[in-house]
Structure formats: C-alpha cells, structure tokens
C-alpha cells in the first residue's frame, strides 16, 4: 500500500515537471519581472535546487501532509480539498448506499424469479443505461424537472439565505434531491443485475443444492446462504466504486453546480492551478488505496471462502 502511494506521488511529481515552462513563472504569473525578484521567488519555493532535491523535498512535505499552496486560493491546497470532500461524499454516498440496499433486494428477487418479466426488464434497463451518457441524462433531468417543471432548484447546494440549522438542512436536501435521483437511477439497475448474477452463480453451487435437498424454503435460502455469500463479492464491487465516491463525478457535479471534488478538479484545470490539481487527484488516489486496503481486510472477515483459503 505504501509502495503504491509512493508511486502515485512520484507520478504526479513527474507529470507536473513535464509541463513546459518554468514552474516559478506559473506562480508569479508574469514573465516580465525583474530578474532578481524572479530569483528570490524561486529560492523561496526551493525551485533553484536541482530536480532530485526538489523531489525529495516534495516527498518530505507530502509525508507531513503539505502538498503546497494553491495559486488561486492563496492557501494550503490540502485545506481546500478537505473542504470539498464532505460535499462530494454527501452527494455520492447517499444514492450509492440506497441503490446498494435496494439493489440487494431486487437482485436476489429477480435471481429467484429469473427470466420472468421483471428480470428481463431490469436487465435491459441496466444494459441500456450502461450506454446512456450520464451527463446527458442529468441534463435531461435538469431540463425536465427544474426548468419545464420547476420542482427542484436548477443548481447549487444550498440557499444563501438559509440561516438556521433546520433551514440549511432542508435547503441542502432540496438541492441534493435531483442529483441524488440521477445517480440513483443510474446505479440501481446495474447494481441489481450484479447481485442477480452473483446470486445465480451461488445458487448453482453445491452447498445451496444441499440446502435445497435439506428442504429449506426459498426465503430461508435467500437469507441464510445466498446473502451471506454474496456480501463478499459485493464488497469488491464496492471497492471499485470508491474512486467515484471520493473523487466525485466531474460530470454530475458540473451539471448540478455541486462544488465537490469533481468540480474542484475542473476548476483547478481551468485556472492552471497545478498544485491544487495535483493535490486533488493525489488525495483521491491515496484515499482510494487506503479504502481498498481496508476493504481487503473486511472482505476476509465477511467472506468465509476468503478467510479459509
């Protein structure tokens, strides 16, 4: 885990170094400064040292949790990123958890009622949604439910005039509703189908056949065996989604003007704020790596097959 984090750090350092031009110049913004001021600024940022020294300084600072100063925010990039993170988590986790819970139910249901109408319907929806550009769908949602039928706010996260706690709470809820629905719509069917396929595979396994032979009822099988055994693989699907949970969805956040991590990446890119861009991506990667590490351990706890092997 430490090794991969180290690799990620190195990669991002090199990428920023690959940029044409002088990094100091990007900080002070104007190439036409007197030379002595330029030298001074370079020294202040350690940019007068050879590249390998800069690399070690960068690593040292990163370990201390210092990834530099944003060109545009004029303060520590880590602070800026950490302010955005909760908003993204709010946006992503709620619909993901919801679609997981519901997906589990629907997925096992259609697995037991396989090839019936609802199963076919769910699968075709999931498959079709795979090919629908999510940002386009979000755009249509805004067009339909915030513009033509103004049920939801067009964009944003909170009403500026909401002052008291309950006011703010409901204001956020109202603003989050449409993006939540959009994310939920996209994730639920695919999740349900995942669960379905997992369940069908498990149903074919020996111990279920034994259970059936023992005369257990469907519901019992579903509860006792299938769910327990599906949890492990489901967990690994979830770990694949961690990047999206933490890093946010650039496209969804853009369309709903949700100022989370995704918009931060875009904003840093547009403002050529390289330290901020680097930090946002790096922090996402590091969190993802850590989350995967934790997930591996948890999976071993949950999934009997992993534990015994």
């Amino acid at each position, binding site marked *: 885990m430490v090794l*991969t984090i180290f690799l990620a750090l190195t990669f991002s350092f090199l990428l920023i170094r690959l940029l044409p031009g002088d990094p100091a110049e990007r900080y002070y913004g104007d190439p036409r400064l007197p030379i002595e001021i330029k030298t001074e600024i370079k020294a202040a940022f350690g940019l007068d040292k050879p590249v390998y020294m800069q690399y070690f300084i960068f690593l040292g600072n990163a370990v201390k949790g210092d990834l530099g100063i944003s060109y545009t925010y004029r303060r520590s990039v880590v602070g800026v990123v950490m302010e955005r993170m909760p908003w993204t988590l709010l946006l992503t986790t709620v619909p993901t958890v919801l679609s997981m819970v519901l997906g589990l139910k629907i997925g096992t249901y259609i697995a037991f009622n*396989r090839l019936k109408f609802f199963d076919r319907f769910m699968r075709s929806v999931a*498959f079709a949604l795979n*090919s*629908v*550009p999510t940002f386009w769908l979000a755009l249509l949602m805004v067009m339909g439910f915030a513009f033509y039928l103004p049920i939801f706010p067009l964009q944003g996260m909170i009403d500026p005039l909401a002052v008291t706690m309950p006011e703010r709470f409901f204001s956020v809820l109202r603003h989050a509703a449409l993006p939540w629905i959009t994310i939920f719509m996209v994730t639920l069917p695919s999740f349900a189908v995942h669960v379905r396929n997992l369940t069908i595979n498990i149903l074919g396994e020996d111990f279920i056949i034994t259970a059936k032979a023992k005369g257990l009822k469907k519901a019992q099988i579903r509860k006792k065996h299938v769910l327990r055994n599906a949890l492990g693989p489901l967990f690994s699907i979830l770990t694949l989604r961690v990047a999206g949970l933490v890093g946010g969805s650039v496209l969804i956040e853009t369309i709903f003007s949700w100022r989370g*991590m995704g918009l931060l990446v875009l904003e840093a890119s547009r403002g*050529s704020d*390289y330290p901020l861009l680097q930090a946002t991506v790096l922090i996402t990667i590091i969190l993802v*790596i850590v989350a995967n590490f934790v997930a591996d351990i948890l999976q071993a706890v949950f999934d009997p097959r992993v534990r015994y092997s």
Partner: protein
Amino acid sequence: MKRRGPLKELWNSTEGRFSLVVISGLVILAIFAGWIAPYDPYDITQRTFPLQPPSTRHLLGTDGFGIDVLSQIIYGARVSLTIGVLVGVGVAAIGGFIGALAATYGGISDTLSMRTVDFIMVLPGLPIMIMIMTTIGSSFWVMVMIFIMFGWAGTARVTRAIVLVEKSRGYVDAARCAGASKMYVLMKHLLPATYSILFVTAAFAAGGAILAEAGLAFLGFGDPKLVSWGKMLNFARTYNAMILGAWWWIIFPGVAVFLASFSIMMMGIALEKTFNPRLRERDR
C-alpha cells in the same frame, strides 16, 4: 459438426442483427460523411440561420451557430467511431498480450503486472485524465492514448484467467515436453484461446471509449478542431440551448452517443453469447 462463421452466428441472434445493422450504418455514415451529409459543418458559407427547428431543409434543425445538426452528427460519427475502434483494438491488443504474458511466465512478471492492474482498476479515471490533458494538452491522439492506458487493465485480468485455465490443460504440457518454447506455446496455443474473449472486451472498451470521449468533449477537453457529439453537447449547454428551447440541439447528439455505444456493447453481448453458450441459458 462444422462451426458456422461467427458473422453468420451473430446475425442469427436478435442482438447481433440489431448491432450489426446499426454499426454498419454508422460506419457508412462516417466514411461517406462528405456525400451523405446535406451540409458541410466545417464550411462557414454553408451556415444558415441559427436555432431552426427540425424541418425538411434541416431534418434535425440547426444549432446556435446556424450549422445543420444532422450534418454535424454524421461528421461526428467519424470521431466517435475512430476513437471506439482504436481504443477497442488497443485495449484488446495490449491487455490481451500482457495478460497472456503474465499467465504464461508467472512469477515476478505476473505479480508485477497484476499489481499494476489492481492499481489502475481503482484509480479515479476522469480526474486523472483531466489532469493529464491539462498538462500536456488535449488532442485526439492524447485522448486515445489515455483511454488505452486506463482500459487495458480489465482485459489483462480476464485474459490472464483464461490463459491460466488453458495452461492447465494437457496439450500445453505436451507441447512443452515436445520442446516448444514458452513464447511459441503462448503464440501458437494460448493466445488463440483468448481471441473470443478479446473480441468481447474490445467491444465493451470501444463502447466505453465512445461514452468517455463524449464526456471529456462535453467538459471542453475535446479536440478543438473536430466536430464531435460531445462537443455539440458542450456547445449546446454553453450557448443556452435549453433556454432557447432548442431541444433538438441537446436530444439528438445524446441519442447518437447512446446509439453508437449501445450497439457496440450489444455486439459485445451477442459475441459473448455465441462464444459462451452457457450464458445463453442463464440470460436468455
């Protein structure tokens, strides 16, 4: 029993037939765009009044620049399909090769490549793509490279699994005993066994690439010189299509992206079913 040609087999399934028809239609549009499209979107003299709703002169209307939407969609097929094909082929070739290599040789090369695969699979794709495109610039080829870079991992993992299964069969050992080198066995026996699955993953990668290209172009990272569906949507959003009531400017490019990606993924499913009849039973 003699196996039928894969194309014929594809044609026999509904999905296969649908995807073949749509894809070949799109390919024809892309190749003969210059003849088929009623106007040339790159030619400024062929622009008319902006925001005309669909009519007989402009079947899908005109956008805020006065450019015929249908013609843009036809020309845009070039970008989407080329990206799809290049990424599909690239992902299958690189992923397949690395996966097969890892499985054949095992040991350190296996661990190393599978660790890399694990790493790539969990990375936040879009932010990193944005970071790369911000630093080195966005162009068609940069986009293709990045998509392949992120896409090969999944294919490598699947290929490796298949080759491992194949390796455990008797004939590989027999070939090795007969003195065949590992490389020879890999090229002659193991890789061909993966071809079917490579076709499937290539199709999915291509469909994914079309979506990803649309997304990046929508965010403004598309090649500024090329007409593409994602860029049309980007302009539609930037230049107020919604307020102007120009639904045709938003709906049709999105439908085009969906159709292209959908038909290619559908082809993947159809291929999967012809190669793997067991699935047919499960997912009829």
